[in-house]
């Protein structure tokens, strides 16, 4: 279900609320009666995208289920900052699991409810990208293949943040983390390696479960519509929410939403939904920007712009964005063919004469091979 487009009202689809709109057409977050499922006093850092994302998702789910909702929560920032014993910020029945078994615990909760004959209480499992993509991955895949009646939400901030910003399977190429430190130009590694990591939403889709969707904290209407759609369905559902982390990314706390907006506008993070393994909707790019605009706001990419600039890595990241744009058809029709950096990569110095990699242009294929040689080799 696509979010409703709001036309002709000063602020349209993008703002949280709008005094000119019928209260029924405003977002859940615009309502004073929203449940504030994650309430004030939590210890997340200033500008935490995950705290914001969790409230967005759970408030929407609470509304969709009339408050009949329980949650299992993997270890991670979200659990640590919300629930230091004996305090809790959660305003719903909430169970802390181990780091790696939140999907299985959620499955158990759903099974218990079924055994007790309760069918109107819905279950959410949630965790960060480390708990979901790495440590809890087997449990998650099991939950998917059994089609357990759980909505699993991954809040993706692209590294293990509460243990000190270590690389996860969701850390993007080129990014600095505690264990992907750039070694300096020519030393063979510029932050996280190209060609590694995994795409959890696509893997979830491969399970052909009822619903898979991605969202960011910058597109609230879209996010709420996706939660609502997920709660209309039964069976295994997966929602992957992009949540910037000011601390781990070295970004200004005020830029959290801006970064989430830019990651979608660059094409680096495609926002889409799929049902039964097939893509049903894609959020188009509204004001396309080159990846540099996104990268430069984050110190985890600062080494790419220090002298001498790692242009090849920046171009490589742009190539990822360009590929997403093609693969997910992210451009609105009129913007086709926009002239942007990265689309015309200087072919000089790149290996030639090899066939393109499937789904990539020749230039991108050459660039990928080159990056794999120079950067991958250092691992």
């Amino acid at each position, binding site marked *: 279900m696509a979010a409703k487009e709001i036309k002709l009202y000063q*602020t349209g689809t*993008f703002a949280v*609320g709008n005094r000119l709109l019928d209260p029924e057409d405003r977002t859940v977050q615009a309502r004073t009666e929203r449940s504030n499922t994650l309430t*004030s006093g*939590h*210890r997340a850092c200033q500008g*935490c995208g995950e705290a914001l994302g969790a409230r967005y998702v759970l408030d929407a789910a609470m509304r969709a289920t009339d408050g009949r909702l329980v949650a299992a929560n993997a270890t991670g920032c979200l659990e640590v900052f919300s629930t230091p014993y004996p305090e*809790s910020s959660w305003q719903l029945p909430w169970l802390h699991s181990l780091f790696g078994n939140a999907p299985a615990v959620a499955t158990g909760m759903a099974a218990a409810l079924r055994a007790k004959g309760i069918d109107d209480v819905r279950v959410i499992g949630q965790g960060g990208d480390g708990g979901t993509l790495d440590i809890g991955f087997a449990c998650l895949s099991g939950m998917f293949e059994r089609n357990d009646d759980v909505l699993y939400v991954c809040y993706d901030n692209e590294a293990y943040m509460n243990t000190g910003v270590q690389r996860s399977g969701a850390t993007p190429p080129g990014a600095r983390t505690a264990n992907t430190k750039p070694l300096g130009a020519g030393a063979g590694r510029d932050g996280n390696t190209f060609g590694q990591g995994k795409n959890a939403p696509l893997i979830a889709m491969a399970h052909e479960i009822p619903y898979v969707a991605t969202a960011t904290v910058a597109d*609230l209407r879209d996010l709420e519509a996706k939660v609502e759609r997920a709660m209309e369905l039964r069976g295994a559902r997966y929602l992957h929410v992009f949540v910037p982390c000011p601390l781990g990314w070295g970004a200004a706390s*005020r830029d959290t939403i801006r970064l989430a907006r830019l990651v979608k506008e660059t094409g680096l993070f495609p926002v889409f939904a799929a049902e039964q393994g097939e893509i049903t909707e894609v959020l188009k790019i509204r004001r396309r920007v080159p990846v540099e605009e996104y990268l430069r706001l984050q110190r985890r990419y600062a080494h790419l712009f220090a002298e001498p600039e790692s242009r090849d890595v920046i171009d490589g990241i742009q190539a990822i964005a360009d590929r997403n744009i093609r693969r997910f058809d992210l451009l609105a029709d009129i913007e086709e063919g926009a002239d942007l950096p990265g689309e015309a990569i200087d072919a000089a110095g790149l290996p030639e004469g090899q066939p393109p990699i499937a789904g990539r242009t020749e230039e991108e294929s050459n660039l990928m091979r080159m990056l794999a040689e120079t950067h991958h080799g250092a691992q």
Partner: protein
Amino acid sequence: MDKPFAITLDVGSSLANKTGSWRTERAVYVDRLPPCQGHCPAGEDVRGWLYDAEDGEEGYERAWRRLVADNPFPAIMGRVCYHPCESACNRKDLDEAVGINSVERFLGDEAIARGWSLDPPATASGKRVLVVGAGPSGLSAAYHLARLGHAVVIHDAGPMVGGMMRFGIPRYRLPREVLDAEVERILDLGVELELNSKITDCEEAMEAGGFDAAFLAIGAGVGRNAYVPAGESAKILDAVSLLHSMEGEQPPMLGRRVVVYGGGNTAMDAARTAKRLGAAEAIVVYRRDRDRMPAHEFEVEEAEEEGVMMRWLSTIKRADEGEIEVERMELDESGFPQPTGEVERLGADSVVLALGQESDLGLVEGVAGIEVEDGVVRVGADLMTGRPGIFAGGDMIPAERTVTVAIGHGKRAARHVDAWLRASVWEEPPEREAAGYEQLNTWYYADAPRSHRAKLEIARRAGTFDEVVHGLDAGNALLEARRCLSCGSCFSCDNCFGVCPDNAVLKLPETGELNPHYRIDLDFCKGCGICVAECPCGAIEMVAEEV
């Protein structure tokens, strides 16, 4: 212990943890000065009345009342104002400026159509004020003075009210029914109007009428003459008289080919009027080039659309019967035109001089303390002349000569006169920080192209004085109002309330007024600044906490 199995401790809420103590900066709601208001010569609260108009049907009257608090002539403004508000509008950097002027006209026309009347004056002050001149400045001053409770009498030398709005602006730009309707509303407040009563000595008139103060706004109604060597039978007249004669008198016979000399808005009006009076050719002769022409771009465009021809870089050397001599000019390095000696002959049945206007300052001659310099009266910042109690404004003081500037003078003068009558001083409100484009987060505004006003077909303009520019209808006027970005002031979009990761923005009940219905909960605000970054209109700022 009445607890479930294995539970020994109540759940404590994190609300006990006041994270506000982390903060080094706090978010504060501000109200910055939007560029439209900052650039309005009449000081209209443009953003404020657009906000009211955004509500549609139920907001139009509120919008109109907020508008007329500053300027009693919205329907006139919506036709003749050169809208510096739109030139300054921040939206021009996003797509195209908000059509403020067209919404203003819509509200003005609504008020006339629905017969809305002005709020009655405050309690009578017992003071009497003489206003000399029933043009935009005098009427504006009379209106504001009347609302402040003073008894006002306007004297005008002319046979009809309106000044330059009637005798300078042609009806195809300002239909007279509109002018009459908005003037009538002011007179309904109890303002007395005496026409055909030229004041020749203002001190004497004040004493005779028992006035406590006077506001002079006689305008600049005398066409400036330039010496053009002319043969006996050459027909030369000035633009001011030409436009004046369009009101009731017999319009002059101009002939087939009319040359207008000058490059200002009056020249355009004269040339367009000549076309409408039946001239086959109307040619504007101007000594500099188009870029240096004082006329407004859209006036030149409309004139050209109607077939008015332009002859840049030319002066008239001599006029004879049916023919003139024109000399080609060249701009020197400082942009000043210099003669070249190249002379050409041009057919012309009449020549209309539009070379600027002057004031007839007879009424202040001999008044002690009043100084005249360069043909205009000197006034202080409070618009008072050197003679205490006599104020002046409009075209007769040094300022840009537009209707809106004149109206602004009238408003300011009224405030100062009022203060002076109460033996006090009116202070201009302190200047507010300007709301710049860089403070906006334009992501949140809907993509909304501007609605332009339709114009009368060119073929139908030639022979008639029908209004050229049409108004917006209710539908697109509403859309146009809603294109306002509300620069620098909260318009209740709920973004701050929604985007705070700490639920530290509280939402208060809406009052319908333009001010924030939100409050920062300092118990929990960590000072991240997301609300500031994501506020579309720049109505929140971060302020360092005092340590």
